[in-house]
């Protein structure tokens, strides 16, 4: 049945899209609060990928177990980056923030190129070739696990912002920085925390991505652009929007890769982006500012 075929592809795209969405969630969190577009986002994601690859090679660690370690490492990097550099640029024009983060991205991607070389590296997991049958669909075990883990992390993030005091303080910062300062919140500290959280989330997404894709430095700028597309499609600053955007882009990529040629799959994503920018510039789930 051809319809099963399409369903299968759509479902795989959806699972990949959840990981994309998680990466975009990190970008959305940072932009929503610090109002800086993290142009080094894909580079951070690939750093997470290499971390998982190294841990897998040295300790035989499953990427699902490397993910929390990558979260901790990238949290520290993100926190330091915001404290040390980005915080000075929060009030500066967009193009300067862009150049700063572009410089950081250039440093990161080339450091990885020097350390790991241009060749693709992957992690061996015992269930690499397993498939799981759900109804009439056959899904890869790696994809299911990566997608499920992405949902768990996203849910934890939503819970943090919804229920914890710190999460509420960060949301207050995002809504009204001046008001937040007036009631005594430590804005700079919260910004650093937010950048750390965003970096941690994309680090996890990177670790999970190693289940689906081999790590290469060249992936970094692609993932940066992909995260942007997803966030704009879903709505800048909207967390559910980022996940929805990720799923949409993941599915459209999978279907376009199948219906057209794989080299044209990102054309589809840009098409979706242009249509959304024109018809609903605030994104599918974003609020009009």
């Amino acid at each position, binding site marked *: 049945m051809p319809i099963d075929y399409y369903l299968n592809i759509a479902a795989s795209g959806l699972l990949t899209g959840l990981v994309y969405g998680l990466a975009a969630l990190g970008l959305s969190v940072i932009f929503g609060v610090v109002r800086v*577009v993290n142009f080094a986002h894909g580079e951070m994601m690939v750093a997470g990928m290499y971390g998982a690859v190294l841990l897998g090679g040295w300790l035989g660690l499953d990427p699902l177990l490397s993910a929390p370690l990558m979260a901790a490492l990238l949290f520290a990097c993100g926190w330091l980056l915001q404290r040390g*550099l980005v915080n*000075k640029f929060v009030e*500066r024009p*967009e*193009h*300067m923030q*862009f*150049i*700063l983060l*572009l*410089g*950081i*991205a*250039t*440093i990161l*991607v*080339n*450091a990885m*190129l*020097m350390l790991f070389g*241009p060749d693709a590296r992957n992690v061996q997991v015992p269930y690499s070739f397993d498939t799981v049958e759900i109804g009439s669909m056959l899904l890869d075990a790696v994809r299911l696990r990566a997608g499920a883990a992405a949902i768990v992390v996203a849910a934890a993030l939503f819970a943090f912002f919804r229920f914890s005091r710190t999460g509420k303080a960060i949301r207050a910062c995002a809504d009204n920085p001046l008001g937040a300062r007036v009631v005594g919140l430590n804005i700079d500290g919260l910004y650093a925390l937010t950048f750390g959280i965003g970096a941690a989330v994309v680090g996890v997404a990177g670790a999970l991505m190693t289940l689906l894709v081999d790590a290469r*430095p060249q992936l970094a*700028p692609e993932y940066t*652009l992909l995260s*942007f*597309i997803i966030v*704009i499609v879903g709505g*800048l600053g909207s967390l559910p929007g980022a996940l929805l955007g990720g799923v949409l882009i993941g599915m459209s990529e999978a279907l376009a890769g199948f219906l057209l040629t794989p*080299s*044209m799959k*990102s*054309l589809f994503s*840009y*098409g979706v*982006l*242009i249509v959304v*920018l*024109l*018809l609903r*510039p605030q994104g599918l789930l974003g609020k009009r500012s």
Partner: protein
Amino acid sequence: MSGLSGMMPSGVTGRGLVLLVLAALGLAVAPFVADRYLVSVLTTVLWFAYVGQAWNVMMGFSGLLSLGHALYVGLGAYVSAAVFVHFGIGPWAGMVLAMLVAVVAGCVIGFLGFRFGVKGVHFALLTIAFAEVARIGFDHITWVGGSGGFFLPVEAGASDPLNLRGSPVLFYYVALALVVGALFLSRALLHSRLGYQWLAVREEPDAAEASGVDLFRARMTAVAVSSALTALGGVFQAFYFNNLFPEQVFSMGRSIEIILPAIVGGIGTLVGPILGAFILTPLGEALTFLIEAGGLDLPGLKQLFYGAALVAIVVFRPEGVWPWLARRLRLVRQPGEGA
């Protein structure tokens, strides 16, 4: 705005004028004293100075952040190369068509963006999206070679300036003419009614609109001028390198290279893009040389230093090098110094 003094060339001091004339003379005689390598580096510098200047019209004068200028370079390059290869139409006629196509593309993006209120980061992403669509699209257009590349016929020793075929020195002078032309055009534009409208739109769009400036028209003309000028840079590139690959010509990396000279030199200033190109290209060459001399031939090391230099420049000279240099060396009059 602090960059204003560096932006107004009418405030150039005598010392600044002398330096400017000396620099122009140096560039005019450079091919007679420099070797082939130096001429090729200088041609690259001039090319980036030129396209940087073209980009500056949009971002520097009108506040429209375009991160997809590789689109206009690519369209200019491909259109002029295609009519030359397929119909034998030379670059001097081809460039008119190239500019026309680029302006149409720019106006489509501008129209969609400005009519639908796409601003700031969103507008920048719209420009990236169109450049990427062109990159992937041209990969699949076999009429101009697709992803395998498009090549212009090369005859050794040909000298046909009318078809832009000739020695590297010819290209050097063409590039120099482009830079000088763009500099004077930008200067004239800045001092025109339109230029003042652009500055007003950049600084305070609401106030500009309230005082009768047609925002949409001002922005559209900025996009049109910038895309037409950038397309000329593309025509030059096509005939200088004689090969075009969508992955290079339309890449995001190329768009970034185009905007760096202006940002490093000083956005919105006339001299900034030129100075920025003279800093960045030699910096890259020097890094290559040092790395080779040090025997550290690691791929990525050069780009790593380049990234670090970018961060250093934007942290320590956020308004660009030119406004600071002009103040330090008293090349322009300071506000309050009188005429």
